[in-house]
């Protein structure tokens, strides 16, 4: 009988997808805050007329930020207090990541893995850093629009630039994240578990042997 192993709790699934969906909206409206959509005819696509109005685009950006900011803050505090640190990088992850990535293309043998892949742990910290930077600079933008804080002109410029540049980096990491999941078949069981919360026991045994052993010993 094939058994399934729980990989993600419902809370984690909700966190992931609320960050993902609001993140995509933020990304699209964030790009729309740059004066590009009109030039590139996006505003003329059926259903995208609203992107021509910067005020509408920014309003939607703000609304999506409610979900995004809440989910990220929840994630940090919930898992921080519970000490769920399996996604934080460990010593030697950099070298191991290279092996795992090579293995994804059939160029090397995959080392035994924990619950998360070493390159997932590194990516987590990288994306996490960008997200924190985006949220921090975004909140400063909200506060200065509210005039609850008055920034010096230079500080306002720098904050805006950091938000815009980090936004571009976020687009890049988002594309890599999605591509690695979609185009590399060995990662498909992980995609499935992001919807169901479970992976097959066989998969866990085979790929995440260190994690599997740990669960079995518990």
């Amino acid at each position, binding site marked *: *009988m*094939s*058994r*399934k*192993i*729980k990989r993600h709790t419902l*809370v984690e699934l909700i966190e992931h997808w609320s960050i993902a969906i609001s993140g995509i909206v933020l990304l699209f409206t964030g790009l729309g*805050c*740059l*004066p*590009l959509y009109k*030039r590139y*005819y996006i505003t003329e696509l059926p259903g995208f007329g609203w992107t021509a109005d*910067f*005020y509408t685009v*920014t*309003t939607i950006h*703000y*609304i999506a*930020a*409610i979900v995004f*900011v*809440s*989910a990220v*803050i*929840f*994630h*940090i*505090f*919930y*898992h*921080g*207090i*519970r000490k769920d640190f399996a996604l934080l990088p460990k010593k030697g992850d950099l070298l191991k990541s290279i092996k795992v990535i090579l293995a994804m293309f059939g160029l090397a043998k995959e080392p035994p893995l924990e619950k998360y892949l070493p390159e997932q742990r590194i990516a987590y910290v990288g994306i996490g850093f960008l997200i924190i930077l985006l949220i921090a600079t975004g*909140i*400063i933008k*909200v*506060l*200065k*629009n*509210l*005039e609850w*804080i*008055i*920034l*010096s*002109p*230079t*500080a*306002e*410029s*720098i*904050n*805006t*630039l950091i938000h*815009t540049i980090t936004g571009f980096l976020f687009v890049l990491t988002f594309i890599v994240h999605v591509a690695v999941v979609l185009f590399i078949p060995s990662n498909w069981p992980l995609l499935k578990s992001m919807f169901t919360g*479970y992976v097959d*026991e066989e998969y866990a045994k085979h790929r995440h042997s260190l994690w599997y052993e740990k*669960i079995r010993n*518990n």
Partner: protein
Amino acid sequence: MQLTRRKFLLLSSALCTSLILGNEAEAAEGKYATLIDLTKCDGCKGESIPKCVHACREYNKSRFPEPKKPIQPYWPRKTYEDWSDKKDLIDTLTPYNWIFVQKININGTEINIPIRCMHCDNPPCVRQCPFGALTKQPEGNSVINDKLCFGGAKCRDVCPWQIPQRQAGVGLYLDLLPKYAGGGVMYKCDLCKDKIKVGEEPACVVACRERLGEKAVFTFGKRMEIYSLAKNAKEKGLYVYGDKQNGGTSTLYLSSLPFELIEKALLEKKERFKMPLNVKNKIETTFNPIGKVILASGFLSMTGAIIGALASKRSSKEVKEDE
């Protein structure tokens, strides 16, 4: 050293304070304002060019754009905005003309309206420039940094008066992706930023007074004083424009005719620049209420996370039978 919660809070508040205050920080409302009394403006009758316009062009000419030709169109579009062959235009706003006098005839009365940037209290151009190229200075003026401006013209789109003007073929975008992103540099009045920084008056104000003396159209001064001048004028039956529009600005117009008539006339004549009466500051009316929700939900979520984490018991057995 361990980062305790107390240390973290101390550190972050110190960081925030230094970011917030800087040494240029001032209150949201600027130090200065301008009164433009339309009852006194005759558009410099008899002069080849209105004094304010001439003074502005003279004072700022060293900052006018000198585009590299040929100018590339804004791919994939075939157009680009180039005013460099129309440098002599004085009856509209261009990258080479940051103030002009709008003439309009209302029921036989000729009205002359000097038009330039209003310098809003909460300027949409500054707040929404994605490159931080626009800043609001402590003096109250909004300033475009021509070194940082990409020429996307978003500032013009979000400005209720469409004031900033674009010149292609100059600026930062030429060094990055000239074909695909950016469109030049935006230009507009910045109240002669270097002059007012050292306590002098903008060039237009000085030039007007040289011609009209006591009866000058422009009065530049401390914001409080300008606002109270406008208030007094209102009590005497004049109409005021600019105090309420877009949540308040530092440019107040006085007129003996209601601004409804001026708005209507400019609309009817399809003039390029208009004076809409009902201008809401959407940063304040739309963004800010949602902004408060973002902040509040952040705190709520933090509280929820703390309670949830403490209440949750980590399940040790995470295996279940497949049905």
